[in-house]
C-alpha cells in the first residue's frame, strides 16, 4: 500500500489480492511519459467516432421507444411536436425530440416521469431543493450499475486502481455525491472509506492512518480540509493523498492550483446531476483540460438557451443531455441550465470521448446584477489571482432601485499587514480587478478569518437580499 505519487506499483497488495473479484481490473494500460494511463473500459472510452455513433444511435432508438411506451408525460410532449419513435433512426434525429426542463420535473413530481414500475426500482436520490421543489430521481439496479460504472471510469482516470484507498467525503444520503463515488470506488476495487462529509479532524485522521490516496469531496470542502491540514502542520509530503476527485459545485482553475499545492495532489474535476444519475456524467483525465463525457450513456448537445437551436461543437451555450440507458428516470434532451462548450480535440490521454469545458456556472448560480451576468466563479478567480483565499461571500442587495454587490473576503495572514495604507491599496486593487472581470463595480469588505460559514457540503457563496 505504498502507492507513491502518480506511479501506482503494479504489485498486488498482500492479503487483498483475490479478495474481491467482482470488479473489473482496468483492462488496458499504455505508457504515456512516466504515468500509466489506465482505463476502466477501454473499448468504450477509446472507441472510434463511428463505433460511438453506432452505439448511441442504437441506444437512442431503443430509449425513445421505451419512453413512448412507458412515460405518458413525455409521450404527450412528443405528440404535441408530431414526433413518433419511427422518426428517430439515428442520433442525427435527436434534434426532433422535445426538451425536458426543470419545470417539467417539478410538474411531474413525484412519479410523472417514472419509466419503470416502482416494483423494479431500488433507490431514489434527491436534489437539495434550494431553488424550488426537490427533484426525486428513481433508479433500477441497472441504473445504479451504469452510474457506478461511470464513477469507476472517473476514479480510474484519476489513477485509481485496486491498490488505492479511496475516501469518500461527499455527503451520503439523498445527495448523489457520496453514493456515486462510493459505488465507483467499489467497482474499481479500491479500499473504500465511507466517511461522508463533516468531522474534519476525523477525516484527516483517516487520511493519515489509513494512507488514503484518493479523496472525493466538494472542492470547497477539499480547500477547507487543506487549510486545516496546513494548520496542523501537515505539508504536501506528509499527506499520503495523490489525487482528488472534486465536483458538485463550480470551482475555478485557481482554486484547483491552490488545492493541488496545499495537499500535493492532482485535482480532478467531475460533473453530474441528480436528474442524470449523479456524479460521473463526465470526468477529467490527467490532461485536466475539460471533462470527458460518458457518451455511451449521455449524449451532450449545446443549445442557444433563448432560441433552443442546436449550436455547433465549440460554441458556448446551454448544455443539454440525453440519457441513453437509464430505465427508471429516462431523461431525454434535459436542459441542465449549465453554460459551457464541447470539444472534439484529440486528448493526450487517448480517450476519444467528447470533452466539455468546466461550466462557467450553472445558470442557477448566475446572478444578474445591474443587468450584467455575474458568475461567482469569476469573483473567485480574481480573489485567488490576487492572493486572497477562496473564502468569500457575495451579497447582493437593492438600494433605491439599484443593485448593490458586496463581496466579503476573509483576511488571511498572508494579506495582513500593520500598514493601513497598504491594506487599502490592495483593497482598491481588488475592486479594480473585479471591475475589469465583471464589468461592474463591487464593494469589498474585509472580514475576520473563519467568519464566513463553511458548509461541509456545498458552500453558501451567494446571499441575494433583493426583493423583486
Amino acid at each position, binding site marked *: 500500500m505504498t502507492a507513491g505519487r502518480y506511479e501506482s506499483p503494479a504489485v498486488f497488495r498482500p492479503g487483498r489480492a483475490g479478495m474481491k473479484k467482482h470488479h473489473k481490473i482496468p483492462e488496458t494500460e499504455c505508457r504515456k511519459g512516466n504515468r500509466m494511463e489506465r482505463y476502466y473500459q477501454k473499448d468504450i472510452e477509446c472507441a472510434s467516432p463511428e463505433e460511438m455513433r453506432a452505439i448511441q444511435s442504437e441506444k437512442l432508438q431503443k430509449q425513445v421507444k421505451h419512453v413512448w411506451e412507458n412515460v405518458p408525460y413525455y409521450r404527450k410532449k412528443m405528440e404535441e411536436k408530431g414526433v413518433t419513435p419511427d422518426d428517430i433512426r439515428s442520433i442525427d434525429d435527436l434534434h426532433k425530440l422535445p426538451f425536458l426542463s426543470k419545470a417539467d420535473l417539478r410538474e411531474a413530481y413525484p412519479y410523472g416521469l417514472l419509466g419503470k414500475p416502482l416494483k423494479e426500482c431500488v433507490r431514489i436520490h434527491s436534489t437539495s431543493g434550494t431553488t424550488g421543489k426537490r427533484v426525486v430521481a428513481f433508479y433500477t439496479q441497472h441504473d445504479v450499475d451504469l452510474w457506478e460504472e461511470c464513477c469507476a471510469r472517473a476514479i480510474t482516470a484519476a489513477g485509481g486502481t485496486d491498490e488505492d484507498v479511496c475516501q469518500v467525503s461527499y455527503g451520503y444520503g439523498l445527495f448523489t455525491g457520496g453514493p456515486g463515488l462510493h459505488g465507483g470506488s467499489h467497482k474499481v476495487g479500491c479500499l473504500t472509506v465511507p466517511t461522508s462529509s463533516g468531522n474534519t479532524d476525523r477525516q484527516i485522521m483517516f487520511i493519515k492512518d489509513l494512507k488514503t490516496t484518493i479523496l472525493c469531496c466538494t472542492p470547497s470542502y477539499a480547500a477547507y480540509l487543506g487549510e486545516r491540514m496546513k494548520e496542523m502542520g501537515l505539508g504536501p509530503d506528509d499527506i499520503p493523498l495523490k489525487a482528488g476527485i472534486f465536483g458538485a459545485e463550480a470551482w475555478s482553475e485557481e482554486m484547483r492550483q491552490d488545492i493541488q499545492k496545499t495537499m500535493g495532489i492532482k485535482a480532478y474535476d467531475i460533473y453530474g446531476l441528480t436528474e442524470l444519475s449523479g456524479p460521473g456524467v463526465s470526468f477529467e483525465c490527467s490532461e485536466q483540460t475539460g471533462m470527458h463525457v460518458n457518451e455511451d450513456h449521455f449524449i451532450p448537445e449545446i443549445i442557444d438557451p433563448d432560441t433552443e437551436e442546436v449550436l455547433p461543437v465549440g460554441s458556448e451555450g446551454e448544455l443539454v443531455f440525453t440519457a441513453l440507458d437509464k430505465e427508471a428516470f429516462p431523461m431525454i434532451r434535459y436542459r441542465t441550465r449549465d453554460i459551457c462548450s464541447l470539444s472534439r480535440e484529440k486528448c493526450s490521454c487517448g480517450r476519444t470521448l467528447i470533452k466539455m469545458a468546466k461550466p462557467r456556472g450553472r445558470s442557477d448560480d448566475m446572478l444578474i446584477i445591474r443587468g450584467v451576468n455575474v458568475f461567482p466563479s469569476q469573483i473567485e478567480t480574481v480573489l485567488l489571482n490576487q492572493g486572497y483565499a477562496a473564502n468569500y461571500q457575495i451579497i447582493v442587495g437593492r438600494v433605491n432601485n439599484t443593485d448593490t454587490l458586496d463581496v466579503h473576503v476573509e483576511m488571511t495572514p498572508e494579506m*495582513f*499587514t500593520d500598514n493601513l495604507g497598504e491594506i487599502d491599496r490592495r483593497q482598491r486593487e481588488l475592486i479594480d480587478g473585479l471591475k475589469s472581470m465583471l464589468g461592474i463595480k463591487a464593494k469589498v469588505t474585509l472580514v*475576520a478569518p473563519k467568519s464566513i460559514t463553511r458548509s461541509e457540503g456545498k458552500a453558501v457563496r451567494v446571499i441575494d437580499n433583493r426583493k423583486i
Partner: protein
Amino acid sequence: MAIKQISVFLENRPGMLDAMTKVLADAGITLRALSLAETKDFGIVRMIVDDVYETATVLKDHDYISSRTPVVAVQIPDVVGGLHKVLTALTAANVNLEYMYSTLAGSGSGNAYMILRVEDTKKAEEALRAAGFTLVEEFPE
C-alpha cells in the same frame, strides 16, 4: 533595542475589541500600551504586551490574524516641549514617522512614553540616543 508591537485585524463592529481583550485577559496577558486605527469596515489594534510570543500564540489559537512590527519606545521628559524635542531629533536625522501613540505604562514609574513606528528603526534609535533620550526595551511593572 526596538520592541515588538502586535497588530491585530478586527472587524469594525460592536463587541469585537471586547472579545479580543477577553481572550488576552483570560491568558493573563498584561497590556502596556494600545492604540486603534480604524476604517469603516475594519480596524487594526496595535498593542505593546508583556509577552509577545504568548500573545501571538493565544491570538492564533482564537483565529485572530496578527503581525509583529518593530517600534521604538522612548521616554518623554515631563517638561513643556518634551515631545517636540524628540521629533526635532528625528527630523534632524531625516527619519519619517508613520504613526505614534503614548502610554503611561507601569503605574509606579510616573513616566510617559511614546511608541513610534518609523521607516528606519535603527536610524531613529541612533538619533534619539545621541540626543540623550532614554529608550526602553521592557516597561517597568
